[in-house]
């Protein structure tokens, strides 16, 4: 227990990088280190990226990043420094779940709100088309390579496309949120404007030309200092 008046610990950060990013968490680790982030930096290579082998069973689902976070955060308690969780592209949903589950004190979504918004039948159709494409790619269903880029990831891991899910999660998030949007976001500026009123906690938006860690991390650091 910290005594009254004692300075709060600088926050730790957990980054769940975008699926398909061959470098894994390395650029994020480097960017946070270069920024002088004072808390613990956790930016692991997710399964099938960087030095991590492909996941058991060889398929990539959004829940994989949540499981990785569970492993990394085991044993943490209220005595630890507060945690900021960062989710990039479709890993934004995993980061949102970490925050919704009460495991983080701040959430950063880097092009991670989801989108583009589609109807249920359109989303089912998207999933069908993706499965058919994977089935027809011999490399994507062959055993995963022990290292290097996994061809299965070349087919992408789509972000969730449900506007109602985005609105519901925005309403239920109880921690400050930083929304970093670049031109690669699945959400248009108009859709973002429509979504913002659904946030019940403080939300800050930052528009950047790219979502490269070197661009994004200074914005995260500035935001984290405020909260």
């Amino acid at each position, binding site marked *: 227990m910290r005594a009254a008046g004692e300075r709060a610990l600088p926050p730790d950060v957990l980054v769940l990088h975008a699926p398909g990013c061959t470098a894994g968490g390395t650029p994020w680790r480097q960017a946070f280190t270069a920024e002088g982030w004072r808390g613990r930096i956790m930016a692991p290579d997710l*399964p099938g990226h960087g030095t991590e082998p*492909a*996941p*058991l*069973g*060889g*398929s990539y*689902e*959004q*829940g*994989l990043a*949540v*499981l990785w976070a*569970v*492993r990394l955060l*085991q044993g943490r308690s209220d005595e630890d420094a507060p945690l900021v969780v960062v989710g990039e592209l479709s890993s934004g*949903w*995993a980061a949102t*779940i*970490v925050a*919704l*589950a*009460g*495991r983080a004190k701040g959430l950063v979504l880097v092009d991670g709100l989801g989108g583009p918004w589609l109807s*249920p*039948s359109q*989303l*089912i*159709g998207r*999933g*069908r088309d993706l*499965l*058919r494409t*994977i*089935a027809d790619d011999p490399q994507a*269903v*062959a*055993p*995963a390579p022990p290292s290097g880029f996994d061809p*299965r990831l070349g087919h992408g891991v789509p972000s*969730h*496309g*449900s506007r109602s*899910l985005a609105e*519901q*999660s925005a309403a*239920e998030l*109880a921690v400050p949120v930083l929304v970093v949007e670049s031109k690669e976001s699945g959400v248009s500026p108009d859709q973002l404007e429509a979504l913002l009123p659904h946030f019940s906690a403080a939300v800050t938006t930052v528009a950047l030309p790219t979502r490269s860690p070197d661009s994004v991390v200074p914005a995260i650091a500035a935001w984290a200092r405020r909260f």
Partner: protein
Amino acid sequence: MHLPAPERARFLDVNRTRLRLWEWGDESAPAAVCVHGAYDHGRMWDWMAPRLADLGFRVVAPDLRGHGDSGRLGSGEMWAASALDLALLARELGPPVGMIGHSFGAGQAMFTGGVWPELVRWVVNLDGLGQSDPPEERSLAERAADSWAAAERVLLRPPRVYASLEEMVERRGSVNGRLPTPWVEHLVRHGARPAEGGFVWKSDPMFSVGTPGEWGPEYEDAELALLTRPLLVLTGAEPDTWSEMSPAQIDERMALFDNARHSAVDGAGHYVHIEQPEIVLAAVSAFITEVAP
């Protein structure tokens, strides 16, 4: 109860996993794939499969990924990957194949046939039209916290060890109260493996770990509606665990299909093919004769 062992058993490396396959019948005959339900395994077809083989099929019953002797799971979100397993299995066997599924496996058979209609000739669904879809009362945050707790249980703690197979029979019997005890013993005998201190279920505990996301009745209907191949649905008429849809709800689901017929089987609950095997066999035989003479 004595059920003969399958005529053949092998493993198939497919879609980055290893599937245990149980087989009956002439290997040159058209294939019919029997797909078990959640937490079950391919040996649940030990009565039905040889009789389907007698109808002129090469019958193949896989242990789905995360079940039986097949490969383990990376996450609980295995629905799409498992359907891809079945599609590639169908290609290996020689499409189009027939598919008979129970419960979760029926959903897998319908989804596979919906995504790859060219690989599936017909589908028999045994009490697997889905749940009754009560409105989700838990908040997203509660579901996320539950999901986190489930993941911690599976990732950070050892699986439950049962002291004996008899203890597992008692447990399984308490969940599926309508299943005849000899069948419970059969499913347990082939669904358990020795572990230090006793036995554990073969099914991967990771199967129970999901994460909240974009799903609901509209998504389920859209997915079911992908299926255009001939479909026979047999549901148990008796109330049972995992068999909770009302006749009206069943009718609503059936209306999603253009090429489907449904019968409710008296004297059966969720395990309709185990409780009333002769009736199910006769219905399946008549259906196949109708749609694939």
